[in-house]
């Protein structure tokens, strides 16, 4: 039994020590916004925050998450008000949408660490997240737009 803090709420989960956080979140807690894409940290669809750092939850053991603040797409903001979510909608970014939770969670760390990312910074931070629909040009625009929004309104 592990006690986890996800999106500011506590959960007791009956998981084996080798169970990846992804499946704890999805199958035990029922937070399905975090997606399974590859199971080996290749595609980034499962990206969540562990104490504010982006991790691939498909290879992060549940034991490593104990005592840490876990944030998933569901906990990124109330009512989709994070500047990235606002910018994502403004640019009509998602297509099939399956990878987008992971994209936004990766971008959120980039934007917090680097409020003025260049195209090169975006390449460096976002190349671990695959989008098969090819929404990359819009993701890039949305990150730049979110940087502007963040300056104007601050993060919420």
């Amino acid at each position, binding site marked *: 039994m592990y006690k986890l803090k996800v999106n500011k709420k506590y959960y007791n989960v009956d998981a084996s020590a080798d169970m990846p956080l992804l*499946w704890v979140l999805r*199958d035990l807690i029922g*937070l399905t916004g975090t997606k399974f894409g590859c199971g080996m940290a290749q595609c980034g669809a499962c990206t969540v925050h562990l104490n504010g750092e982006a991790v691939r939850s498909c290879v992060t053991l549940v034991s490593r998450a104990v005592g840490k603040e876990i944030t998933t797409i569901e906990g990124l903001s109330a009512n989709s008000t994070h500047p990235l979510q606002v910018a994502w909608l403004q640019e009509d970014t*998602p*297509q*099939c949408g399956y990878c987008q939770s992971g994209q936004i969670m990766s971008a959120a760390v980039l934007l917090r660490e680097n409020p003025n990312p260049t195209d090169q910074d975006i390449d460096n931070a*976002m190349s671990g997240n695959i989008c098969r629909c*090819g929404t990359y040009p*819009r993701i890039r625009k949305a990150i730049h737009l979110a940087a502007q929004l963040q300056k104007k309104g601050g993060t919420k």
Partner: protein
Amino acid sequence: MTNIINTNRRQFLKSGAILSGGLLISFMVPAGPKKLMEPGLLPDPEATFSPNAFLRIGNDGTINVILAHVEMGQGIWTTLTMLIAEELDADWKKIKVEHAPPGQAYGHTGFGIQITGGSSTTYSEFDRYRQAGATARELLVSAGAKKMGVNPADCTTKNGMVIAGAKKASYGELAAIAATLPVPAKVTLRQASEWKYIGKGLKRLDAPAKVNGTAKFGMDIQFPGLLTAVVAHSPVYGGKVKSFDASAAKAMPGVKDVVEIPGGVAVIADHFWAAKKGRAALKIEWDNGDHAAFNSATQLENYMALAATKGLPALDKGNVETALGQAPKVIEAEYSFPYLAHAAMEPMNCTVKLTKDKCQIWTGTQLPGIDQGAAAKVLGFKPEQVSIETVFLGGGFGRRATPTSDFIVEAVHIAKASGKFIKMVWTREDDMNAGYYRAAFVHRMKIGVDSNGYPLAWQHTIVGQSIFEGTFLEMMVQKGVDASSVEGVSDSPYMTDVKDAYVGLHSPKLPVTVLWYRSVGHTHTGYVMETIIDDLATQAGKDPLGYRRALLKNHPRHLSALNLAAEKAGWGKPLPAGHFQGIAVHESFLSYVAEVAEVSIGNDGHVKVHKVTCAIDCGLAVNPDGVKAQMESGIIFGLTMALYGEISFDKGQVQQTNFHTYHIARMNESPVIDVHIVNSTEKMGGAGECGVPPAAPA
């Protein structure tokens, strides 16, 4: 929205309108195309004809738009809704969108069966969805006039209200009355000059749910009592289970059952992780079957040998042998293309809740009607005993439209064998190794050119498996020629002015299952044609753009796309040192797309694509930003094909397993993309696939 007004299904069938708490508008597809469906798979129309329609207006004013096509990223959630809204004057805040269940009313207006594919949704539904909106509006106006005691001619509609002078009534209030009125035989659609949405567009209606994690995909289905199933498949393609020992797997925590199904052994557990660990603990002896020696190198050799022979004619005009013999110069070329996996981001999965006489299925599918029939066949059920709820598709690209319903059938077998409610989840490796690939192809050609370097004789042989043979679309194979294997070559505009031409096709039968893939035959034919045209231009010492213009002089839509792309890309203007431009133009899915790519080649030989300028003539662009998004998407899909993309076999086994061995273009490889839409009043075409073919050759 649950109150039922005085009617029943029988009346509904007669009147053509239903009310399940409101107004429902439905249209039947003309009977003709139904014959495309395999007998026995055709659902009984009366039995499945419950809430089948495109539009449902509740007494609370909620407007449910019901999509005959599925959302897999291409934006149809928004575009079809726009078509209804264009005629209905609805309150946007009250519109809800949902996928249709399987049902005859949702048959494709061209293909008959219920399918999302061929980049055809927008143009095939352009009239039907507008009519659905216009019919509903007319009924609501009649109802409003009746209620307010005014003449229908004095009524207008706006924002979900029928208005007559100072009087007004909401659509919600009027839905019940409207449902009792006879459906007008004919409605007048609005003129283009009156359009508010068409040609202008609207933000994606599915985007809000896709930025906060609430969008539901097949993978996200959960309900009490649902278990997860993971399947062990034969490592050798087409192998079968000889025997297995499940004792260790069954002893694993969380594992609930292990069952054998056709093609493998399924482990059923409380959750995915337990099922996956259970699968790893299985001891299975496989019968490798007949294909244990199958390998890509031998396949390629065989294909090359076949390509040297004539093949069945897809195009035969003049006398190509003689003409080649007389040509001042003959250019020969050979191309080969590997199998490709669709690799949608959401691996295949399917949830099945099977009870004694009812089977409920949740999945992301492009072919719900076919899947319903296939599931029923496994269970010995009638199709109407099987319900399918189509959730968002985490990518499709053709893979979620298998004529055999492969992953749905597998899930139903697990449910049947175990008696449990299961969500079958394929791992990425399962997904990548499960077949249904874009077929491998070889092209070989001999082109005789005149003294100016323009083609005068063209001999072209294509070798590759048929995707249509043995499927419900078998009529696409005529006299042994699968149209999808030769599309883009035999009908290429470059062939038009060549007097002597022969396009031959060999369709070898191989164990590997093959399937349509975003832009289908054009994935390889577009590449071959545009690359060879570049070679011919180079050998003629001509500019690739000018050479194409000369060949395409009688093809105005090709030219308009080509010229616009060239102009916007600044073709021929100076570029940064080490940068080059390439150009391509190709017609597919009734649309004409030209792309100019600006590339450089690094010291390591790696090609970097800096910018792609794209122009499309798709006729009327109903949702222009949606068209642009599909061009961006298609270009990056094409880039992945050009730079990476190969499924190969050795000893009957697929050698690629996951994204580290099957690469997909990433953010750092994504070029700047600049899309322009030709202002066109020509026939409408598709947008979902046509951006793919020119990307690689450009």
